[in-house]
């Protein structure tokens, strides 16, 4: 049995899966002040009467870190940056506790100038004086050579509650994002750790010995104990749970678009050959662009409960929500009311829906039915144009080789998966506008919890091998190792893949669902002086693809 839990912004859901069939579900309103209470309530409900020994795994997605960041309830963070030349320091600082120090490495990971331990010690004292417990240490190009960050860490070691190191956050290049990611990691570390501790207490208390997994922004899981060093990976797991839920209920293998139509917003995700697309560099949260590996999703302000208005001769929808649909006693007409009036769904009070739409119809000098149709068309049109825009952006992403420019894959969705309250009634309209079949999977109301339950463990590693320098680095694992001048491309691939495997298994992956692939593979001859080949510069990135340990075995869709 597998338990999946999704602590969402509004509701907390749990699902108990047995042999990949949904055995039980539970739902509660999320207590924003005490998330753990909601989590316990739904979990107890689904495992009541079950034998805890038969539970193989518990996976959860939570908004704990996201909430902390969005609501600004984070810890004060001291940042030490070793940046060298580039953007002015004031463009890099996050808050007043940022200090730029001397010392940096260059683009090849060569140390140009060392750090000054006395300078670092002075900053440490300053932080101590301000009672700062969490420190982020970030160097430019530290993914190419983490030595400076490590040295700074040595001076700080033991004096602070937690140190976050930039090179551990991601293998991708982008110093400002590395700073933001490290900052957020440090800022939520304590909150996240406390949350994890309560979850583990609860699980122990229930006598469950199964591994506990947490869903990350990239739609994969990590064992909860491993996630403690990198808590920032668990932010934005809500949209990830939704995407993985859709995947678990459909198990498609083609290019597809996924729509989660909620009350206030519609979230869009894209699948390429059945695999959800990732943000190229990382997700954006609370205004911070980060290096956090995350699913590519777009959110637009159109949902079932969006307010509909008539302004300057035009009908408008959203982006705000004034309350529930008029049919459920809300203050203004909504797309849901339009769908009720059109007879697409028989929820709520049709009389109230009609009354609300009639107000707009009077202003527009049209019949309520015409207006309802217009609202519905406009809502769908808005969603569809956002999908098109997103696809265009993906398909026009700059590429850097002649081959990719001429032969690059274009994503052309063959199907649309639609979940959320108005999914069923809106599907026929969306299908027509997008000119591809729409599929509304069953169990959509607990899709997020199912997604968390079945997501596989994902991760990535980035290798740079520079045979001229005689060194290979894999920053995510803190690996910096000597290689011979004859280190081959195959050896580089092998090192990258074996490191990825070990990392994934440590994070809780199952050997049989490790779907590893190389996502970047570039080899450059390094030529110096009068045309002498002095070495090779190899860049390899490998990942465990986002995906499922297995898909659900239920037929429930339409």
């Amino acid at each position, binding site marked *: 049995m597998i338990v999946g839990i999704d602590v969402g912004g509004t509701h907390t859901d749990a699902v108990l899966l047995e042999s990949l069939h949904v055995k039980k579900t539970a739902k509660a309103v999320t207590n924003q002040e005490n998330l753990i209470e909601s989590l316990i309530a739904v979990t107890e409900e689904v495992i009541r009467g079950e034998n805890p020994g038969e539970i193989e795994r518990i996976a959860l997605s939570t908004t704990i870190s996201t909430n902390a960041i969005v609501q600004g309830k984070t810890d004060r963070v001291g940042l030490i940056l070793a940046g060298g*030349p580039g953007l*002015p320091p004031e*463009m890099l600082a996050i808050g007043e506790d940022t200090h730029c120090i001397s010392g940096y490495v*260059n683009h090849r990971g060569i140390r140009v*100038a060392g750090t000054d331990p006395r300078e670092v010690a002075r900053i440490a004292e300053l932080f101590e004086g301000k009672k700062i417990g969490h420190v982020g240490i970030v160097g430019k190009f530290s993914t190419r050579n983490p030595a400076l960050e490590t040295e700074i860490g040595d001076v700080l070691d033991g004096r602070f509650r937690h140190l976050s190191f930039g090179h551990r956050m991601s293998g991708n290049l982008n110093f*400002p994002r590395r700073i933001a990611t490290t900052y957020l990691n440090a800022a939520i570390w304590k909150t996240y750790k406390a949350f994890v501790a309560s979850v583990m207490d609860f699980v122990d208390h229930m006598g469950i010995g199964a591994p506990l997994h947490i869903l990350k922004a990239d739609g994969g899981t990590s064992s909860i104990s491993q996630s403690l060093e990198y808590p920032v990976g668990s932010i934005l797991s809500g949209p990830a749970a939704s995407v993985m839920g859709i995947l678990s209920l459909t198990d498609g293998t083609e290019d597809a678009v996924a729509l989660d139509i909620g009350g206030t917003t519609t979230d869009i995700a894209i699948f390429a050959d059945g695999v959800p697309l990732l943000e190229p560099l990382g997700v954006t949260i609370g205004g911070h662009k980060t290096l956090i590996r995350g699913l590519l999703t777009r959110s637009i302000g159109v949902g079932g409960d969006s307010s509909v208005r008539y302004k300057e001769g035009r009908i408008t929808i959203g982006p705000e929500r004034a309350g529930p649909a008029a049919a459920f006693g809300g203050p203004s007409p909504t797309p849901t009311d339009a769908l009720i009036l059109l007879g697409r769904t028989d929820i709520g009070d049709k009389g109230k829906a009609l009354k609300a739409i009639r107000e707009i119809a009077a202003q527009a000098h049209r019949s309520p039915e015409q207006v309802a149709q217009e609202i519905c068309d406009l809502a769908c049109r808005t969603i569809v144009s956002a999908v098109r825009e997103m696809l265009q952006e993906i398909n026009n992403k700059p590429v850097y080789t002649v081959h990719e*420019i001429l032969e690059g894959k274009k994503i052309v969705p063959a199907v649309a998966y639609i979940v959320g309250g108005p999914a069923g009634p809106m599907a026929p309209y969306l299908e027509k506008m997008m000119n591809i079949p729409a599929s509304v999977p069953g169990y959509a109301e607990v899709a997020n919890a199912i997604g968390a339950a079945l997501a596989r463990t994902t991760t990535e590693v980035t290798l740079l091998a520079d045979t001229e320098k005689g060194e290979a680095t894999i920053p995510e694992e803190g690996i910096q190792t000597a290689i011979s001048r004859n280190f081959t491309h195959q050896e580089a691939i092998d090192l990258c893949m074996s490191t990825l495997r070990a990392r994934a298994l440590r994070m809780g992956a199952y050997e049989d669902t490790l779907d590893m692939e190389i996502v970047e593979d570039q080899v450059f*001859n390094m*030529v110096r*002086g009068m045309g002498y080949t002095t070495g090779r510069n190899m860049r390899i990135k490998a990942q465990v693809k986002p995906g499922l340990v297995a898909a659900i075995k239920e037929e429930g869709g339409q």
Partner: protein
Amino acid sequence: MTGSRKKTGLVFFPAFDWAISATHPEREERLLYTQDQVFEEGLLDLDNIVEFKPGLATIEDINRIHICVPDANRVITQSHLISAGGAITAAEKVMEKEVDNAFALVRPPGHHAMRIVHGARGFCNINIEAIMIEYIRRRYGHRKIAIVDTDCHHGDGTQDIFWHDPDTLFISVHQDGRTLYPGSGFSDEFGGPNALGATINIPLPPHTSDEGFLFVLDNLILPILDEFKPDLVINSAGQDNHYSDPITNMSFSAQGYATLNDRLSPDIAVLEGGYSIESALPYVNVGIILAMAGIDYSHVTEPDYNPEATRQTAQTSRYIEQQVAAISDLWKTRATRRDALVKGKEYLRRSRSIFYDTDMISEQQEETVRICNECGGLITIRSEASTGNRIFAVIVPGRGCPVCRHKGEEIFEETGTGSYHHVYFQDRDRDLFLVK
């Protein structure tokens, strides 16, 4: 910093799978560290910097400016269509006002490619700026355009293409041709008879540093631009004036390049040469991008930068001051010089030997231009290359007058292929390209 924030477009195409040959300076690795630096600095995340994917230039775009022998497909690779396409994309974004300015950070380069193309010279097959300029004029209407070529090598290809065009001001500042490829670009190369003064060459002595370049900019280039009043300023942003460049001898720095770009404030910049791929390009490019975007670039310096060590000598400064004075004088007297040059002449002819160092081809060319007060003048070219190809070309300039066009059509009509492999007819205004 002189300006405020600007919206800057960046077309980045490092062509990681294209090289002239494995160990050639124009190889896969060239923009690798530049990419690393630009990515690591996070420049593409800044609100006012937008990256665009390069489009593909077409054969028609090439035929609007070049006479490729025997034809365009035979002298280019796909990579050339992308780098020219990248320059065009940069121009489109500026012309459509999607951005305030744009930088095409693309390779392979183009400024040594002349009007007639028998092969590659100076690592260039087709002239990507020239193709871009004629694309702009074709699509958006006629524009007066100034090109400021800051590559260390004389932009002899661009000079050749616009030699007779009074509406394209070409200014090249470069290392003295007596000391560097291609050995041309002396100040007396001053434009064709119908466009005298629309070509300005500013050769500088080896080891000229920031001070010298900026002196030339402030005291010669900017005043000339003020007078010419171009609709668009284009910077051929070669980066081989850098003190660490392995194939040149100048002493320009990343700060110097950024400051120059800031003061010049080009609408479009296009990368040309620059082969110090590790020590210079990453920093020079970051500096240029920040300068274009109006962001403080004062913290962009090379790790080994030492202004004292690279500073030009007092003698060099004096020499440059004299050069600037002499060229200013040429510019101011261009009208009387032209009158003297064309007096009583109907046609002017020049004969040249052109060497294609990259492809080891030599060409003999005879170019005749009709003296015309109404337009750039009808051009005919007879060209024979060591490949055995012998061609004749008739070129009606952009905004060509009826007389030049009529004469051009007559000549093309009358010229049989006979002793030529091909006879070409290029008419920019009608976007016509005929071959027989």
